[in-house]
Protein backbone atom coordinates (compact mmCIF):
# COMPACT_ATOMS: atom_id res chain seq x y z
CA UNK A 1 0.00 0.00 0.00
CA UNK A 2 1.30 3.36 -0.98
CA UNK A 3 -0.55 5.39 1.60
CA UNK A 4 -0.58 4.64 5.31
CA UNK A 5 -4.00 3.54 6.49
CA UNK A 6 -5.40 6.51 8.39
CA UNK A 7 -8.49 6.86 10.51
CA UNK A 8 -10.18 8.94 7.84
CA UNK A 9 -9.06 6.43 5.22
CA UNK A 10 -10.86 3.70 7.13
CA UNK A 11 -13.94 5.84 7.57
CA UNK A 12 -13.98 6.71 3.88
CA UNK A 13 -13.62 3.03 2.99
CA UNK A 14 -16.53 2.05 5.22
CA UNK A 15 -18.67 4.85 3.79
CA UNK A 16 -17.90 3.81 0.23
CA UNK A 17 -18.54 0.15 0.93
CA UNK A 18 -21.93 1.03 2.38
CA UNK A 19 -22.77 3.30 -0.56
CA UNK A 20 -21.70 0.66 -3.06
CA UNK A 21 -23.82 -1.93 -1.29
CA UNK A 22 -26.89 0.33 -1.48
CA UNK A 23 -26.20 0.92 -5.13
CA UNK A 24 -25.85 -2.80 -5.93
CA UNK A 25 -28.46 -4.45 -3.70
CA UNK A 26 -31.48 -3.68 -5.94
CA UNK A 27 -29.74 -5.37 -8.88
CA UNK A 28 -28.83 -8.41 -6.78
CA UNK A 29 -32.40 -8.61 -5.53
CA UNK A 30 -33.70 -8.37 -9.10
CA UNK A 31 -31.44 -11.22 -10.21
CA UNK A 32 -32.43 -13.22 -7.17
CA UNK A 33 -36.17 -12.95 -7.89
CA UNK A 34 -35.44 -14.25 -11.38
CA UNK A 35 -34.21 -17.46 -9.74
CA UNK A 36 -37.38 -18.09 -7.75
CA UNK A 37 -40.42 -20.15 -8.61
CA UNK A 38 -43.88 -18.60 -8.61
CA UNK A 39 -44.69 -19.39 -4.97
CA UNK A 40 -41.37 -18.07 -3.59
CA UNK A 41 -41.52 -14.85 -5.56
CA UNK A 42 -43.07 -12.95 -2.73
CA UNK A 43 -40.60 -13.56 0.04
CA UNK A 44 -38.90 -10.54 1.57
CA UNK A 45 -35.55 -12.35 1.73
CA UNK A 46 -32.66 -11.00 -0.32
CA UNK A 47 -31.53 -14.49 -1.28
CA UNK A 48 -33.97 -17.20 -2.34
CA UNK A 49 -34.03 -20.54 -0.58
CA UNK A 50 -34.83 -22.61 -3.65
CA UNK A 51 -32.99 -21.72 -6.83
CA UNK A 52 -34.56 -22.51 -10.20
CA UNK A 53 -33.23 -21.73 -13.65
CA UNK A 54 -36.56 -22.44 -15.33
CA UNK A 55 -37.32 -18.73 -15.76
CA UNK A 56 -34.03 -18.09 -17.51
CA UNK A 57 -34.49 -21.09 -19.73
CA UNK A 58 -37.92 -19.86 -20.75
CA UNK A 59 -36.92 -16.28 -21.53
CA UNK A 60 -33.68 -17.13 -23.30
CA UNK A 61 -35.61 -19.42 -25.63
CA UNK A 62 -38.11 -16.64 -26.13
CA UNK A 63 -35.30 -14.39 -27.25
CA UNK A 64 -37.04 -11.42 -28.84
CA UNK A 65 -35.21 -8.84 -26.74
CA UNK A 66 -32.57 -8.31 -29.44
CA UNK A 67 -34.88 -6.06 -31.41
CA UNK A 68 -35.37 -3.74 -28.41
CA UNK A 69 -31.61 -3.54 -27.86
CA UNK A 70 -30.98 -2.87 -31.53
CA UNK A 71 -33.57 -0.09 -31.73
CA UNK A 72 -32.18 1.58 -28.62
CA UNK A 73 -28.59 1.36 -29.79
CA UNK A 74 -29.47 2.73 -33.21
CA UNK A 75 -31.46 5.66 -31.85
CA UNK A 76 -28.88 6.50 -29.17
CA UNK A 77 -25.88 6.42 -31.50
CA UNK A 78 -27.66 8.42 -34.21
CA UNK A 79 -28.86 10.95 -31.63
CA UNK A 80 -25.32 11.42 -30.32
CA UNK A 81 -23.94 11.85 -33.84
CA UNK A 82 -26.59 14.34 -34.91
CA UNK A 83 -26.30 16.25 -31.64
CA UNK A 84 -22.54 16.59 -32.11
CA UNK A 85 -22.96 17.84 -35.68
CA UNK A 86 -25.54 20.42 -34.60
CA UNK A 87 -23.65 21.52 -31.51
CA UNK A 88 -20.27 21.81 -33.22
CA UNK A 89 -21.82 23.83 -36.05
CA UNK A 90 -23.63 26.22 -33.73
CA UNK A 91 -20.67 26.66 -31.39
CA UNK A 92 -18.19 27.19 -34.23
CA UNK A 93 -20.33 29.79 -35.93
CA UNK A 94 -20.99 31.67 -32.70
CA UNK A 95 -17.60 31.36 -31.06
CA UNK A 96 -15.07 31.37 -33.92
CA UNK A 97 -16.84 32.70 -37.01
CA UNK A 98 -18.60 35.39 -34.97
CA UNK A 99 -21.83 35.05 -36.87
CA UNK A 100 -24.04 38.14 -37.00
CA UNK A 101 -26.59 38.01 -34.20
CA UNK A 102 -24.58 35.30 -32.48
CA UNK A 103 -25.51 36.64 -29.04
CA UNK A 104 -29.20 36.44 -29.80
CA UNK A 105 -28.75 32.98 -31.25
CA UNK A 106 -26.94 31.80 -28.12
CA UNK A 107 -29.56 33.36 -25.87
CA UNK A 108 -32.31 31.67 -27.86
CA UNK A 109 -30.69 28.25 -27.63
CA UNK A 110 -29.73 28.58 -23.96
CA UNK A 111 -33.25 29.67 -23.03
CA UNK A 112 -34.29 26.08 -23.73
CA UNK A 113 -31.58 24.65 -21.47
CA UNK A 114 -33.90 23.39 -18.73
CA UNK A 115 -36.81 22.68 -21.00
CA UNK A 116 -38.28 19.24 -20.28
CA UNK A 117 -39.45 17.14 -23.16
CA UNK A 118 -42.80 16.71 -21.40
CA UNK A 119 -43.70 20.31 -22.11
CA UNK A 120 -43.22 19.74 -25.85
CA UNK A 121 -44.62 16.25 -26.15
CA UNK A 122 -48.12 16.97 -27.41
CA UNK A 123 -47.10 19.31 -30.29
CA UNK A 124 -44.16 17.07 -31.19
CA UNK A 125 -46.45 14.03 -31.37
CA UNK A 126 -48.91 15.94 -33.57
CA UNK A 127 -46.13 17.25 -35.79
CA UNK A 128 -44.65 13.79 -36.29
CA UNK A 129 -48.09 12.44 -37.11
CA UNK A 130 -48.51 15.18 -39.70
CA UNK A 131 -45.14 14.34 -41.23
CA UNK A 132 -45.93 10.62 -41.15
CA UNK A 133 -42.97 10.02 -38.85
CA UNK A 134 -44.60 8.17 -36.00
CA UNK A 135 -42.92 4.79 -35.79
CA UNK A 136 -39.80 6.09 -37.52
CA UNK A 137 -36.38 6.28 -35.89
CA UNK A 138 -36.13 9.96 -36.74
CA UNK A 139 -39.27 10.53 -34.67
CA UNK A 140 -37.06 9.87 -31.62
CA UNK A 141 -33.71 11.07 -32.95
CA UNK A 142 -34.95 14.52 -33.98
CA UNK A 143 -36.63 15.58 -30.72
CA UNK A 144 -33.95 13.98 -28.54
CA UNK A 145 -31.26 15.85 -30.46
CA UNK A 146 -33.16 19.10 -30.08
CA UNK A 147 -33.40 18.57 -26.32
CA UNK A 148 -29.63 18.01 -26.18
CA UNK A 149 -28.60 21.03 -28.26
CA UNK A 150 -28.79 23.72 -25.52
CA UNK A 151 -26.56 21.92 -23.01
CA UNK A 152 -24.16 20.79 -25.73
CA UNK A 153 -23.85 24.28 -27.16
CA UNK A 154 -23.16 25.82 -23.75
CA UNK A 155 -20.36 23.31 -23.08
CA UNK A 156 -18.74 23.23 -26.52
CA UNK A 157 -18.97 26.97 -27.15
CA UNK A 158 -17.24 27.61 -23.80
CA UNK A 159 -14.46 25.23 -24.83
CA UNK A 160 -14.10 26.87 -28.24
CA UNK A 161 -13.90 30.33 -26.64
CA UNK A 162 -10.64 29.27 -25.02
CA UNK A 163 -8.80 28.42 -28.23
CA UNK A 164 -6.17 31.08 -28.94
CA UNK A 165 -6.82 33.00 -32.15
CA UNK A 166 -3.18 32.50 -33.20
CA UNK A 167 -3.69 28.76 -33.79
CA UNK A 168 -6.56 29.41 -36.13
CA UNK A 169 -4.75 32.20 -37.96
CA UNK A 170 -1.77 29.97 -38.61
CA UNK A 171 -4.00 27.42 -40.31
CA UNK A 172 -5.73 30.09 -42.33
CA UNK A 173 -2.44 31.49 -43.60
CA UNK A 174 -1.70 27.98 -44.84
CA UNK A 175 -4.77 28.46 -47.01
CA UNK A 176 -7.22 26.34 -45.06
CA UNK A 177 -10.91 27.22 -45.39
CA UNK A 178 -13.24 27.49 -42.41
CA UNK A 179 -14.26 23.84 -42.67
CA UNK A 180 -10.66 22.63 -42.73
CA UNK A 181 -9.86 24.81 -39.71
CA UNK A 182 -12.84 23.33 -37.87
CA UNK A 183 -11.81 19.77 -38.62
CA UNK A 184 -8.05 20.09 -38.21
CA UNK A 185 -7.68 22.67 -35.46
CA UNK A 186 -10.88 23.29 -33.52
CA UNK A 187 -12.43 19.83 -33.14
CA UNK A 188 -9.25 18.16 -31.84
CA UNK A 189 -8.81 20.96 -29.30
CA UNK A 190 -12.36 20.73 -27.93
CA UNK A 191 -12.50 16.93 -28.08
CA UNK A 192 -12.84 16.46 -24.29
CA UNK A 193 -15.92 18.69 -24.17
CA UNK A 194 -17.36 16.75 -27.10
CA UNK A 195 -16.90 13.54 -25.13
CA UNK A 196 -18.81 15.02 -22.21
CA UNK A 197 -21.66 16.05 -24.49
CA UNK A 198 -21.67 12.67 -26.24
CA UNK A 199 -21.85 10.76 -22.95
CA UNK A 200 -24.62 12.91 -21.55
CA UNK A 201 -26.59 12.65 -24.74
CA UNK A 202 -26.11 8.89 -24.96
CA UNK A 203 -27.35 8.35 -21.41
CA UNK A 204 -30.31 10.62 -22.00
CA UNK A 205 -31.28 8.90 -25.23
CA UNK A 206 -30.69 5.40 -23.88
CA UNK A 207 -33.06 6.01 -20.98
CA UNK A 208 -35.70 8.09 -22.79
CA UNK A 209 -39.14 6.61 -22.17
CA UNK A 210 -41.81 9.27 -22.51
CA UNK A 211 -41.36 10.14 -26.18
CA UNK A 212 -40.88 6.50 -27.16
CA UNK A 213 -44.11 5.57 -25.39
CA UNK A 214 -46.05 7.98 -27.57
CA UNK A 215 -44.13 7.82 -30.87
CA UNK A 216 -43.21 4.14 -31.18
CA UNK A 217 -46.49 2.28 -31.28
CA UNK A 218 -45.33 -0.48 -33.61
CA UNK A 219 -43.74 -3.46 -31.88
CA UNK A 220 -40.73 -3.71 -34.14
CA UNK A 221 -39.75 -0.08 -33.45
CA UNK A 222 -39.92 0.00 -29.67
CA UNK A 223 -36.70 0.84 -27.81
CA UNK A 224 -35.49 -0.91 -24.67
CA UNK A 225 -37.16 1.30 -22.02
CA UNK A 226 -40.54 0.03 -23.28
CA UNK A 227 -39.53 -3.62 -23.13
CA UNK A 228 -40.41 -4.20 -19.44
CA UNK A 229 -43.95 -2.93 -20.01
CA UNK A 230 -44.28 -5.25 -22.90
CA UNK A 231 -43.40 -8.24 -20.77
CA UNK A 232 -45.16 -7.05 -17.65
CA UNK A 233 -48.43 -7.87 -19.42
CA UNK A 234 -51.39 -7.20 -17.17
CA UNK A 235 -52.22 -10.88 -16.82
CA UNK A 236 -48.75 -12.21 -16.34
CA UNK A 237 -48.54 -14.37 -13.25
CA UNK A 238 -44.83 -15.13 -13.43
CA UNK A 239 -42.76 -12.60 -11.46
CA UNK A 240 -39.71 -14.84 -11.86
CA UNK A 241 -39.80 -14.63 -15.65
CA UNK A 242 -40.46 -10.91 -15.62
CA UNK A 243 -37.46 -10.36 -13.38
CA UNK A 244 -35.30 -12.57 -15.55
CA UNK A 245 -36.17 -10.26 -18.46
CA UNK A 246 -35.49 -7.19 -16.31
CA UNK A 247 -32.12 -8.60 -15.26
CA UNK A 248 -31.18 -9.25 -18.86
CA UNK A 249 -32.18 -5.72 -19.85
CA UNK A 250 -30.11 -4.27 -17.02
CA UNK A 251 -27.05 -6.46 -17.14
CA UNK A 252 -26.07 -5.94 -20.78
CA UNK A 253 -25.39 -2.19 -20.47
CA UNK A 254 -23.82 -2.78 -17.03
CA UNK A 255 -21.25 -5.17 -18.51
CA UNK A 256 -20.72 -2.82 -21.44
CA UNK A 257 -20.01 0.01 -19.02
CA UNK A 258 -17.60 -2.05 -16.93
CA UNK A 259 -15.64 -2.92 -20.07
CA UNK A 260 -15.74 0.59 -21.55
CA UNK A 261 -15.45 2.71 -18.41
CA UNK A 262 -11.68 3.10 -18.73
CA UNK A 263 -11.95 5.05 -21.99
CA UNK A 264 -15.07 6.82 -20.84
CA UNK A 265 -13.42 8.17 -17.69
CA UNK A 266 -10.18 8.97 -19.52
CA UNK A 267 -12.18 11.06 -21.97
CA UNK A 268 -13.86 12.91 -19.14
CA UNK A 269 -10.62 13.44 -17.21
CA UNK A 270 -8.97 15.07 -20.21
CA UNK A 271 -11.54 17.79 -20.51
CA UNK A 272 -13.97 17.82 -17.71
CA UNK A 273 -16.99 20.02 -17.47
CA UNK A 274 -16.51 23.73 -17.47
CA UNK A 275 -19.57 25.76 -16.48
Amino acid at each position, binding site marked *: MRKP*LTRSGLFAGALLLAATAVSLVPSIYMFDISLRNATDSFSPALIASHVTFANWQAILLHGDLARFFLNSALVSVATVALTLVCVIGLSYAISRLRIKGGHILLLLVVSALLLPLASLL*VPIAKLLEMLGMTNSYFGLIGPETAIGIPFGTVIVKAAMDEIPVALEEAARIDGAGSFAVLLRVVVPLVQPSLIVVAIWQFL*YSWNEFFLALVIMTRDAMKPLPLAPLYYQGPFMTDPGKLFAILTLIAVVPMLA*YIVLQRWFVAGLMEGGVKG
Partner: protein
Amino acid sequence: MARRRRPWEPWLYVLPGLLVFAIFIAYPILANIVGSLVGTHGELSLANYRQAASDAVFWTAVRNSGIWVVACVLAEGAIGFTLALAIELYVPIGKVAFRTLLFLPMVVTPSVIALVFSTIYAPGYGLLFGLFDYFGLAGSFPAILGDPSTATLGVIAVNVWQWCGFFVLMYCVGLAQIDRELLAAAAIDGAAGLARVRYVIWPLLWPTTTSLVVLGTIEALQQFPLIFLMTEGGPADSTQTLATYIFQTAFVLNETHYASAVAVVLFVLALVLIVLQYRLGRAEQAAHA
Protein backbone atom coordinates in the same frame (compact mmCIF):
# COMPACT_ATOMS: atom_id res chain seq x y z
CA MET B 1 -10.47 36.62 -45.10
CA ALA B 2 -12.47 33.72 -46.37
CA ARG B 3 -15.20 35.03 -44.11
CA ARG B 4 -15.41 38.35 -45.83
CA ARG B 5 -15.79 36.85 -49.25
CA ARG B 6 -18.67 34.59 -48.21
CA PRO B 7 -20.82 36.24 -45.56
CA TRP B 8 -23.38 33.44 -45.68
CA GLU B 9 -20.77 30.87 -44.75
CA PRO B 10 -21.36 30.88 -40.95
CA TRP B 11 -25.02 30.21 -41.57
CA LEU B 12 -24.08 26.95 -43.21
CA TYR B 13 -22.71 25.79 -39.86
CA VAL B 14 -25.70 26.79 -37.76
CA LEU B 15 -28.15 25.37 -40.28
CA PRO B 16 -28.46 21.77 -38.97
CA GLY B 17 -28.70 22.83 -35.34
CA LEU B 18 -31.02 25.69 -36.03
CA LEU B 19 -33.27 23.50 -38.16
CA VAL B 20 -33.60 20.77 -35.54
CA PHE B 21 -34.08 23.42 -32.86
CA ALA B 22 -36.74 25.25 -34.86
CA ILE B 23 -38.71 22.12 -35.69
CA PHE B 24 -38.60 20.33 -32.37
CA ILE B 25 -38.29 23.16 -29.83
CA ALA B 26 -39.40 26.50 -31.25
CA TYR B 27 -42.38 25.20 -33.17
CA PRO B 28 -43.73 23.05 -30.29
CA ILE B 29 -43.41 26.00 -27.89
CA LEU B 30 -45.38 28.23 -30.25
CA ALA B 31 -47.91 25.47 -30.89
CA ASN B 32 -48.36 25.06 -27.14
CA ILE B 33 -48.87 28.77 -26.59
CA VAL B 34 -51.44 28.95 -29.38
CA GLY B 35 -53.12 25.67 -28.32
CA SER B 36 -53.34 26.78 -24.71
CA LEU B 37 -55.39 29.82 -25.78
CA VAL B 38 -58.13 27.76 -27.42
CA GLY B 39 -61.31 27.39 -25.38
CA THR B 40 -63.74 24.47 -25.30
CA HIS B 41 -65.69 25.78 -28.29
CA GLY B 42 -62.66 26.67 -30.40
CA GLU B 43 -62.71 30.35 -29.38
CA LEU B 44 -59.72 32.37 -28.23
CA SER B 45 -59.73 32.47 -24.43
CA LEU B 46 -57.75 32.26 -21.24
CA ALA B 47 -60.11 29.57 -19.95
CA ASN B 48 -57.36 26.94 -19.79
CA TYR B 49 -55.23 29.14 -17.56
CA ARG B 50 -58.19 30.00 -15.39
CA GLN B 51 -58.91 26.29 -15.13
CA ALA B 52 -55.29 25.67 -14.08
CA ALA B 53 -55.42 28.42 -11.46
CA SER B 54 -58.37 26.75 -9.74
CA ASP B 55 -57.20 23.16 -10.30
CA ALA B 56 -55.82 21.70 -7.08
CA VAL B 57 -54.03 18.89 -8.92
CA PHE B 58 -52.22 21.42 -11.10
CA TRP B 59 -50.85 23.17 -8.01
CA THR B 60 -49.82 19.83 -6.51
CA ALA B 61 -47.94 19.16 -9.76
CA VAL B 62 -46.19 22.56 -9.63
CA ARG B 63 -45.21 22.02 -6.00
CA ASN B 64 -43.97 18.49 -6.67
CA SER B 65 -41.90 19.59 -9.67
CA GLY B 66 -40.26 22.16 -7.38
CA ILE B 67 -39.63 19.51 -4.73
CA TRP B 68 -38.12 17.22 -7.37
CA VAL B 69 -35.63 19.85 -8.54
CA VAL B 70 -34.55 20.97 -5.08
CA ALA B 71 -34.40 17.51 -3.51
CA CYS B 72 -32.59 15.85 -6.42
CA VAL B 73 -30.01 18.58 -6.88
CA LEU B 74 -29.29 18.84 -3.15
CA ALA B 75 -29.22 15.11 -2.39
CA GLU B 76 -27.33 14.03 -5.48
CA GLY B 77 -24.92 16.95 -5.12
CA ALA B 78 -24.22 16.34 -1.43
CA ILE B 79 -23.85 12.57 -1.73
CA GLY B 80 -21.89 12.86 -4.96
CA PHE B 81 -19.49 15.41 -3.51
CA THR B 82 -18.92 13.45 -0.28
CA LEU B 83 -18.36 10.12 -2.00
CA ALA B 84 -16.08 11.69 -4.63
CA LEU B 85 -13.94 13.20 -1.85
CA ALA B 86 -13.81 9.84 -0.12
CA ILE B 87 -12.70 8.17 -3.35
CA GLU B 88 -10.18 10.71 -4.55
CA LEU B 89 -8.70 11.94 -1.27
CA TYR B 90 -9.14 9.40 1.45
CA VAL B 91 -9.65 5.79 0.46
CA PRO B 92 -6.31 4.05 -0.13
CA ILE B 93 -7.49 1.33 -2.55
CA GLY B 94 -10.30 0.48 -4.97
CA LYS B 95 -10.85 3.95 -6.45
CA VAL B 96 -11.74 2.65 -9.90
CA ALA B 97 -13.93 -0.14 -8.51
CA PHE B 98 -15.98 2.22 -6.33
CA ARG B 99 -16.37 4.78 -9.09
CA THR B 100 -17.45 2.11 -11.58
CA LEU B 101 -19.85 0.21 -9.32
CA LEU B 102 -21.49 3.40 -8.08
CA PHE B 103 -22.11 4.47 -11.67
CA LEU B 104 -23.84 1.24 -12.73
CA PRO B 105 -27.41 2.30 -11.83
CA MET B 106 -27.05 5.07 -14.42
CA VAL B 107 -27.08 2.63 -17.33
CA VAL B 108 -30.16 0.72 -16.15
CA THR B 109 -33.25 1.90 -17.93
CA PRO B 110 -35.74 3.60 -15.56
CA SER B 111 -38.61 1.28 -16.42
CA VAL B 112 -36.62 -1.64 -15.01
CA ILE B 113 -35.69 0.40 -11.95
CA ALA B 114 -39.33 1.32 -11.37
CA LEU B 115 -40.46 -2.31 -11.32
CA VAL B 116 -37.60 -3.40 -9.04
CA PHE B 117 -38.14 -0.61 -6.53
CA SER B 118 -41.90 -1.13 -6.50
CA THR B 119 -41.13 -4.62 -5.27
CA ILE B 120 -38.52 -3.38 -2.80
CA TYR B 121 -41.00 -0.91 -1.28
CA ALA B 122 -43.92 -3.36 -1.23
CA PRO B 123 -45.51 -3.82 2.20
CA GLY B 124 -45.71 -7.43 3.34
CA TYR B 125 -43.18 -9.03 1.04
CA GLY B 126 -40.69 -6.45 -0.29
CA LEU B 127 -37.00 -6.32 0.53
CA LEU B 128 -37.38 -3.24 2.71
CA PHE B 129 -40.15 -4.99 4.62
CA GLY B 130 -37.78 -7.91 5.12
CA LEU B 131 -35.26 -5.51 6.68
CA PHE B 132 -37.88 -4.06 9.04
CA ASP B 133 -39.05 -7.56 9.86
CA TYR B 134 -35.49 -8.63 10.69
CA PHE B 135 -35.28 -5.89 13.31
CA GLY B 136 -38.72 -6.78 14.64
CA LEU B 137 -40.28 -3.62 13.20
CA ALA B 138 -42.66 -5.31 10.75
CA GLY B 139 -45.64 -3.78 12.58
CA SER B 140 -44.48 -0.23 11.94
CA PHE B 141 -43.52 -0.70 8.30
CA PRO B 142 -44.47 2.42 6.35
CA ALA B 143 -46.29 2.06 3.04
CA ILE B 144 -44.02 4.68 1.49
CA LEU B 145 -45.70 4.89 -1.91
CA GLY B 146 -49.20 4.41 -0.45
CA ASP B 147 -49.07 7.47 1.77
CA PRO B 148 -49.62 10.77 -0.06
CA SER B 149 -47.25 12.53 2.33
CA THR B 150 -44.28 10.24 1.60
CA ALA B 151 -44.94 8.92 -1.91
CA THR B 152 -43.16 11.73 -3.77
CA LEU B 153 -40.08 11.45 -1.58
CA GLY B 154 -40.17 7.69 -2.08
CA VAL B 155 -39.94 8.08 -5.85
CA ILE B 156 -37.33 10.86 -5.55
CA ALA B 157 -35.18 8.52 -3.45
CA VAL B 158 -35.14 6.07 -6.35
CA ASN B 159 -34.09 8.82 -8.72
CA VAL B 160 -31.32 9.87 -6.31
CA TRP B 161 -30.22 6.23 -6.08
CA GLN B 162 -29.86 6.12 -9.84
CA TRP B 163 -28.15 9.47 -10.32
CA CYS B 164 -25.67 9.64 -7.42
CA GLY B 165 -23.09 7.68 -9.39
CA PHE B 166 -23.14 10.28 -12.14
CA PHE B 167 -22.53 13.07 -9.63
CA VAL B 168 -19.74 11.05 -7.98
CA LEU B 169 -18.03 10.56 -11.32
CA MET B 170 -18.30 14.21 -12.34
CA TYR B 171 -16.88 15.37 -8.99
CA CYS B 172 -14.08 12.78 -9.31
CA VAL B 173 -13.25 14.23 -12.70
CA GLY B 174 -13.33 17.73 -11.22
CA LEU B 175 -11.03 16.68 -8.38
CA ALA B 176 -8.61 15.03 -10.80
CA GLN B 177 -8.10 18.38 -12.48
CA ILE B 178 -7.12 20.16 -9.28
CA ASP B 179 -3.45 20.57 -8.51
CA ARG B 180 -2.25 17.43 -6.69
CA GLU B 181 -0.30 19.44 -4.07
CA LEU B 182 -3.39 21.36 -3.09
CA LEU B 183 -5.28 18.11 -2.72
CA ALA B 184 -2.54 16.52 -0.66
CA ALA B 185 -2.56 19.53 1.62
CA ALA B 186 -6.30 19.24 2.02
CA ALA B 187 -6.26 15.52 2.72
CA ILE B 188 -5.41 15.91 6.34
CA ASP B 189 -7.26 14.31 9.20
CA GLY B 190 -9.60 16.27 11.38
CA ALA B 191 -11.00 19.75 11.39
CA ALA B 192 -8.15 21.27 9.43
CA GLY B 193 -8.88 18.82 6.61
CA LEU B 194 -12.59 19.64 6.59
CA ALA B 195 -11.84 23.36 6.60
CA ARG B 196 -9.63 22.92 3.57
CA VAL B 197 -12.34 21.02 1.82
CA ARG B 198 -14.66 23.93 2.49
CA TYR B 199 -12.27 26.77 1.65
CA VAL B 200 -9.98 25.21 -0.94
CA ILE B 201 -11.65 22.33 -2.74
CA TRP B 202 -15.27 23.43 -2.78
CA PRO B 203 -14.48 26.77 -4.50
CA LEU B 204 -12.15 25.05 -6.98
CA LEU B 205 -14.94 22.60 -7.88
CA TRP B 206 -17.42 25.40 -8.41
CA PRO B 207 -17.48 25.01 -12.23
CA THR B 208 -18.34 21.31 -11.81
CA THR B 209 -21.02 22.19 -9.28
CA THR B 210 -22.69 24.76 -11.54
CA SER B 211 -22.75 22.25 -14.41
CA LEU B 212 -24.19 19.58 -12.14
CA VAL B 213 -26.87 21.91 -10.83
CA VAL B 214 -27.99 22.53 -14.41
CA LEU B 215 -27.86 18.84 -15.34
CA GLY B 216 -29.59 17.84 -12.09
CA THR B 217 -32.38 20.33 -12.76
CA ILE B 218 -32.84 19.06 -16.32
CA GLU B 219 -32.93 15.46 -15.16
CA ALA B 220 -35.39 16.17 -12.32
CA LEU B 221 -37.79 18.05 -14.60
CA GLN B 222 -37.48 15.34 -17.26
CA GLN B 223 -38.35 12.50 -14.91
CA PHE B 224 -41.44 10.66 -16.07
CA PRO B 225 -41.12 6.86 -16.18
CA LEU B 226 -40.38 6.38 -12.46
CA ILE B 227 -43.52 8.25 -11.45
CA PHE B 228 -45.65 6.87 -14.27
CA LEU B 229 -44.71 3.28 -13.49
CA MET B 230 -44.43 3.41 -9.68
CA THR B 231 -47.44 5.51 -8.69
CA GLU B 232 -49.20 6.68 -11.88
CA GLY B 233 -49.30 10.08 -10.18
CA GLY B 234 -51.28 8.71 -7.23
CA PRO B 235 -52.38 8.03 -4.59
CA ALA B 236 -55.01 10.73 -5.03
CA ASP B 237 -52.74 12.69 -7.43
CA SER B 238 -50.21 13.27 -4.65
CA THR B 239 -47.21 12.41 -6.85
CA GLN B 240 -48.24 14.26 -10.00
CA THR B 241 -45.52 16.45 -11.45
CA LEU B 242 -45.98 18.80 -14.36
CA ALA B 243 -44.57 16.09 -16.65
CA THR B 244 -46.99 13.37 -15.54
CA TYR B 245 -49.90 15.80 -15.38
CA ILE B 246 -49.31 16.84 -18.99
CA PHE B 247 -49.41 13.17 -19.93
CA GLN B 248 -52.59 12.57 -17.97
CA THR B 249 -54.48 15.58 -19.29
CA ALA B 250 -53.36 15.01 -22.89
CA PHE B 251 -53.35 11.24 -23.22
CA VAL B 252 -55.75 9.92 -20.59
CA LEU B 253 -58.34 12.67 -20.28
CA ASN B 254 -58.12 13.93 -23.89
CA GLU B 255 -57.91 17.57 -22.82
CA THR B 256 -55.21 18.63 -25.26
CA HIS B 257 -55.65 22.38 -24.93
CA TYR B 258 -55.51 22.21 -21.16
CA ALA B 259 -52.37 20.06 -21.46
CA SER B 260 -50.85 22.82 -23.61
CA ALA B 261 -51.53 25.37 -20.91
CA VAL B 262 -49.82 23.17 -18.31
CA ALA B 263 -46.90 22.74 -20.72
CA VAL B 264 -46.56 26.51 -21.12
CA VAL B 265 -46.40 26.85 -17.34
CA LEU B 266 -43.67 24.21 -17.21
CA PHE B 267 -41.75 26.09 -19.93
CA VAL B 268 -42.01 29.37 -18.01
CA LEU B 269 -40.94 27.62 -14.80
CA ALA B 270 -37.88 26.21 -16.56
CA LEU B 271 -36.99 29.68 -17.89
CA VAL B 272 -37.31 31.24 -14.45
CA LEU B 273 -35.11 28.51 -12.98
CA ILE B 274 -32.38 29.05 -15.53
CA VAL B 275 -32.28 32.81 -14.94
CA LEU B 276 -32.25 32.16 -11.21
CA GLN B 277 -29.43 29.64 -11.43
CA TYR B 278 -27.44 31.92 -13.69
CA ARG B 279 -27.78 34.77 -11.18
CA LEU B 280 -26.91 32.57 -8.23
CA GLY B 281 -23.96 31.06 -10.07
CA ARG B 282 -22.63 34.54 -10.81
CA ALA B 283 -23.05 35.69 -7.24
CA GLU B 284 -21.38 32.62 -5.76
CA GLN B 285 -18.49 32.87 -8.22
CA ALA B 286 -18.01 36.53 -7.34
CA ALA B 287 -17.99 35.62 -3.65
CA HIS B 288 -15.25 33.07 -4.24
CA ALA B 289 -13.16 35.28 -6.47
